[in-house]
């Protein structure tokens, strides 16, 4: 019995140490990436390729998610607000929900699912096929060449994707509120204009930049340190998507609580 308790404590200790080590490795990785962002040479072509991959190719899924998110918010919001006779507040309710919360969070989650998983898989396959080592032997730092442009692209493109999400989401709400439920367009947009402040937009943008960093940081880290062949790539990809998604939600809570 005593031995079992000792073994149980030992396992908890080992797991805790492993988690602390992993966190340490992740932060050192991030530090190296940040240093490499400000160190020449700057590979603009690589950055443009990653902006295209992470940003442009995510536009369709972002637009689709945004329009339905806006529509369902308007639908649910209308029936809730109508109970209190406050239908006129539907526009601000939809806009504030999207601009402050749903825009950055859903954009982050969509980019994680579409681009983040692909980043991890691509880097993981490059790692197990020794392509990173090949870069190293050529005197090209693999972190600078493979990871930095992806993180830069994430930081640059996420705010833009979020703004696009916000606009399309509000239009989706308009479709339901005005075209389906017969609300006046002036009431819908007028309420938004008077209720939404610059601080709300800035909060959404700060979240989007943070989520862009989380997605690209976690996904490139998991891909960059992939081991054990095809199974390792699969594990890294799953772990990257889960960890990014959870971190986005955790980070969202803390940013919201600070910015409120």
């Amino acid at each position, binding site marked *: 019995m005593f031995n079992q308790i000792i073994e149980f404590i030992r396992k908890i200790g080992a797991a805790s140490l492993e988690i602390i080590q992993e966190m340490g490795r992740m932060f050192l990785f991030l530090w190296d990436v940040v240093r490499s962002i400000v160190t020449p040479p700057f590979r603009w072509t690589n950055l443009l390729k990653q902006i295209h991959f992470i940003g442009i190719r995510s536009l369709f899924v972002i637009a689709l998610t945004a329009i339905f998110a806006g529509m369902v918010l308007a639908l649910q919001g209308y029936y809730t607000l109508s109970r209190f006779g406050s239908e006129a507040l539907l526009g601000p309710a939809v806009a504030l929900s999207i601009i402050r919360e749903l825009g950055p969070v859903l954009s982050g989650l969509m980019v994680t699912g579409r681009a983040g998983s692909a980043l991890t898989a691509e880097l993981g396959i*490059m790692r197990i*096929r*020794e*392509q990173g*080592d*090949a870069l190293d*032997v*050529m*005197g090209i*730092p693999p972190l600078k060449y493979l990871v930095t442009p992806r993180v830069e692209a994430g930081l640059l493109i996420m705010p833009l994707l979020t703004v696009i999400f916000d606009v399309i989401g509000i239009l989706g709400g308009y479709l339901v509120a005005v075209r389906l439920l017969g609300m006046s367009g002036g009431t819908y947009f007028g309420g938004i204009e008077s209720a939404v402040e610059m601080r709300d937009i800035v909060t959404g943008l700060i979240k989007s930049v943070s989520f862009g960093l989380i997605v690209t940081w976690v996904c490139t880290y998991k891909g960059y340190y992939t081991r054990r062949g095809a199974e390792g790539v699969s594990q890294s990809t799953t772990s990257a998507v889960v960890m990014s998604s959870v971190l986005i939600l955790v980070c969202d809570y803390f940013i919201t609580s600070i910015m409120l």
Partner: protein
Amino acid sequence: MTEQAIYMDPALARGTTLSLGRQLVANGCVTESQLDRALRKQNNDHPAAGNNEHLVGRTLVDLGYISQSALLDCLFSQFSREREAYRADAGETPIIRLEQVVKILDGRRVLDAIDIAIPAKRVTAIIGMSGGGKSVILKHMVGLMRPTEGEVRVGEHLLGALSPRQLAKVRGRFSFLFQGGALFDSLNVYDNVAFPLREKTDWSESVIHDRVMRCLEEVNLFGMERKFPDELSGGMMKRAALARALVTDPEILLLDEPTAGLDPIIENAIHYLICDTYMRTRYTMVVISHAVPEIFRWCHHVIALHKGKVLFSGPSTEIGQSRNPVIRQFISGDIDGPIQVI
């Protein structure tokens, strides 16, 4: 590298020996006048390529002065003479040294206080069982792995003491042919071969084009430049990776199982290609190979590894006389012996 230097015959540039064309004449494979005519034709056909010895060989074949197989035999017999002569030179200064190197990976002692010396401007083969640490040794030589204990020296440089910038400079002396080729999947053969030049030099695209096409021709991949790695056979993949390794004109070429997974004909062709490359360039080459005893014909020096220890290090002409039972079993390929696999 500068643009002026790129078409210089590497062997002559290093001041090591006669150019390949002159060696062919010296060995009686072709006559002086045939070589001159071939050089003139080549300069007309490929003015940008200069005195490229591979093209001389190809031109000699095209002009009917020598058959392809006779040309390769001629190269091989020249190489064999050098291999025999190497016995006397075995004590020459090494270019790479591993001194008392220990490497522990996942709790396993992969390298156990080994001492290795790689002779300069020679072909060295490393043989041993799978999982015996051969690839780990190559990765130590180029600084991709650091020893748990011990030191790795390249020339005068102690790799462990170098800054990242200095290490990158030392790595510039190397090219590495990885076991799987390590070609970039998103780039075609041409772009893969051009990649190190585009990244590491400021050469114009036309100069890079000439250089890349010449390397592809040297490995017989002319016409395959638009194919992507997943469209290539195993042999083509290895040759494309070899072209990428050669394109920077390295001083030291590390080849990790260049013939693994290939059929005997392609394996033989790759061996000829390595020999051809060596005879033209006089690079220091380190080859990991399971093609035993065939590989002994294609190298000057052999290092045999077993369980993280060096069992043999010496001229390839002497390994056949080794009394070590592990080496005897490895050469003969017998199931019975000190190495129990079943």
